[in-house]
């Protein structure tokens, strides 16, 4: 058909972490992968990283506040290095991770990057999403799907350790622990402490150490601290009862993996010291970057293996999160139905699931739960864009699809009167016929976007970009994730 069958887009991923700030630019190829005798299926078929930035120390104004102007300068410098201008960037994501995510930095960074990072770059945050991006960037997700083995990726950065359990390429659980290599800072290559973060203070107390800024730490003390940190990580991995210190450092729920596992992959800044043969022996070797990273990596690797796990090597270590963010944050909608270019992009669309997940809806009761769910969202006086997440009709029979279409139109009547597009997230393969039925049954013109459920699994906010491939798909970017909703 006279339609574009291949297109490339350029995506930027920016990771602003506790310790480091990085950027990657990648080229994504979108293709119709279905044969000519089938319904077209647009997929991202290739992801090529075309530029990796240097690894910068995150510019901070103080220990809490990111220097967003300096971040913007980093981005400018790296675009120049890649010979690209902001106009060349189609999409992307900024992920603010680790300790920095706790602080109120996102807004100032987005403002500083406005106009710099292309038309459609979104800020994402949240420990769950960060864990998943890290595991996708490290190669753990791919390992689980090619080897058909469950694997846990632990991305140990400066401020946090992010866990993600992967089964057949899909994250099935995540967790985040406030353990990282940069929680205590030193004068580089010396034993003099220059900063102790709040979580580090808790760890020191748990070890029975009374170190403070300007104190000199011994190798024995550093070993005790990093061993305690590594034990906290192992407690989560073992899914046993947590000790009080681990509980205090836990930033999300603990791991409750639906699958047992014995493969572990470690990425992040300390990962290079997990997979090394050379043990850091002196305080000077440990604090070569002004933190505890090398020793934490060494102790962690030893403990993981000693606990009977098999340690797999990641394809990326310190860059795992930024590569995951740059290459994995953009997804395609699936069977988009009908939406005008002016309506897009849409930002901060709330994903609403009015029905119990994965249950097919008894079709006499479609509209009421939708009305209730929409009203509960609008209780605080806001009027956000909503994407309805629904498994599908009761059966794939035409009559049931019609009933679902009618129920949705009735349930969303007030919402649609404001000329907002109807956004549907469907698990069953019925996007085209449901969209067509809604258009046929609606009284006036209506805009409908259908998104495949796999694209936005377990996500509670999405952004939707401008149409691609001659209007046949729209890019969808996940913003935050919740498990066990």
């Amino acid at each position: 058909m006279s339609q574009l069958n291949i297109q490339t887009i350029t995506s930027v991923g920016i990771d602003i972490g506790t310790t480091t700030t990085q950027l990657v630019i990648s080229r994504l190829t979108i293709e119709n992968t279905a044969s000519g005798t089938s319904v077209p299926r647009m997929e991202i078929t290739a992801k090529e990283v075309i530029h990796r930035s240097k690894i910068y120390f995150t510019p901070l104004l103080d220990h809490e506040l990111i220097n967003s102007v300096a971040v913007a300068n980093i981005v400018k410098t790296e675009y120049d290095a890649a010979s690209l201008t902001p106009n060349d960037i189609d999409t992307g994501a900024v992920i603010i991770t680790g300790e920095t995510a706790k602080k109120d930095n996102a807004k100032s960074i987005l403002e500083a990057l406005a106009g710099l990072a292309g038309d459609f770059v979104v800020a994402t945050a949240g420990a769950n999403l960060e864990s998943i991006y890290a595991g996708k960037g490290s190669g753990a997700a791919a390992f689980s799907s090619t080897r058909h083995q469950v694997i846990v990726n632990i991305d140990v950065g400066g401020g946090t350790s992010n866990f993600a359990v992967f089964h057949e390429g899909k994250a099935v659980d995540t967790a985040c622990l406030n353990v990282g290599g940069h929680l205590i800072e030193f004068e580089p290559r010396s034993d003099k402490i220059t900063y102790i973060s709040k979580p580090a203070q808790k760890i020191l107390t748990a070890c029975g150490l009374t170190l403070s800024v300007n104190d000199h730490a011994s190798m024995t003390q550093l070993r005790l601290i990093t061993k305690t940190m590594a034990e906290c990580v192992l407690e989560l991995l073992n899914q046993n009862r947590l000790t009080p210190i681990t509980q205090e450092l836990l930033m999300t729920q603990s791991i409750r993996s639906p699958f047992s596992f014995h493969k572990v992959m470690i990425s992040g800044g300390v990962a290079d010291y997990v997979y090394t043969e050379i043990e850091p022996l002196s305080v000077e070797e440990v604090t070569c970057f002004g933190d505890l990273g090398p020793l934490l990596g060494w102790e962690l690797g030893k403990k993981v293996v000693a606990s009977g796990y098999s340690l797999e090597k990641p394809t990326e270590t310190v860059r795992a999160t930024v590569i995951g963010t740059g290459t994995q944050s953009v997804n395609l909608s699936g069977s988009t139905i009908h939406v005008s270019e002016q309506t897009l992009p849409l930002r901060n669309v709330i994903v609403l699931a009015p029905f119990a997940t994965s249950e097919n809806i008894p079709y006499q009761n479609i509209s009421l739960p939708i009305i209730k769910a929409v009203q509960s969202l609008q209780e605080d006086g806001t009027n956000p864009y909503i994407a309805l997440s629904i498994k599908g009709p009761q059966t794939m029979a035409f009559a049931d699809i019609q009933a679902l279409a009618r129920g949705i139109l009735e349930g969303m009547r007030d919402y649609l009167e404001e000329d907002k597009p109807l956004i549907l997230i469907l698990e069953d393969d019925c996007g085209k016929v449901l969209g067509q039925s809604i258009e046929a049954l609606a009284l006036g013109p209506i805009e409908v976007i259908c998104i495949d459920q796999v694209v936005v699994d377990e996500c509670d906010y999405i952004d939707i970009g401008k149409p691609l491939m001659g209007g046949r798909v729209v890019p969808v970017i996940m913003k935050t994730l919740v498990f066990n909703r």
Partner: protein
Amino acid sequence: MTAEGNGQLETLIIQSVLEELSKNGLFDSKNKQQVVNSAVQVINSAASVPITPLIPEDEETVTLPTDEIMVDNPFNLEAIRAMKKTTPARIGIGRAGARQKTVSWLRFLADHAVAKDAVFVDVSEDFLKRMNLVAVTSAAQDKEQFLTNPELGRRLSEEGVRIIKEKCSKNPQVQICVVDGLSSSAIEANIPDLLPALIQGLNSIGLKIGTPVFIKHGRVWVQDQVAKLVDAEVVISLIGERPGLGTAESLSAYMIYRPNENTVEADRTVISNIHKGGIPPAEAGAHLVDVLEQILKVKVSGVKLNQK
């Protein structure tokens, strides 16, 4: 075999058996009449007892497991599970020695039987009435002719021509034909959900639809004759595919823009694999609307459409 007279046939058989035996010295012929009489008596009393089947009636239907992993002690069960999800092929079924297990073999035979049935049964009258289709036949007079002489399935019977001229509206933009082809099961399984979705979609973009017809014993090319008879811009045939061992319910949609004497196979656009395990029929109906709209817009179909 029914008993003739007072067991004359049985008597004859027994007598001849006894003669053979006495020839070989295995039977003393002086007791002959007595033995024959008692044997016939036994046979007659047995005949009055009803024959009981070996399998009790309520156990005649056996459901075979379809999607079971039957590999003994698999090294990586997760891997088999993931691979089985990607294909309906018979993988992960284990083996008994060098051969397949009994369940797999029975499943194979059952699927083969379903495939054969799909070819040999007819689409029911009741179904045609429910779908409100004008029914005609091809020039093939029965299944035998249809299967052995493909040419006959490619044109309408004389009566079929007359019925279409009489009952179908002229000059439609889209003429819909439902054709049994090689699987009547595919028609009954898919058309109830596909046809309403197709018609709804065509109506909503304001296309003029002809009177849908059903052609019994039809093949793909019969659509050319129908298109010419009603002078349709584009004709679409929803036709049962040759059944396979994976499914017997797969349907294809063949579309062609203004077929004429120069038409070749490459002029047809096809969407195949429509069934509940492939493209779901209702979803296919909605997609076909897009394809038909595209064909009408550029006024070509088949390979030329892909090149536009």
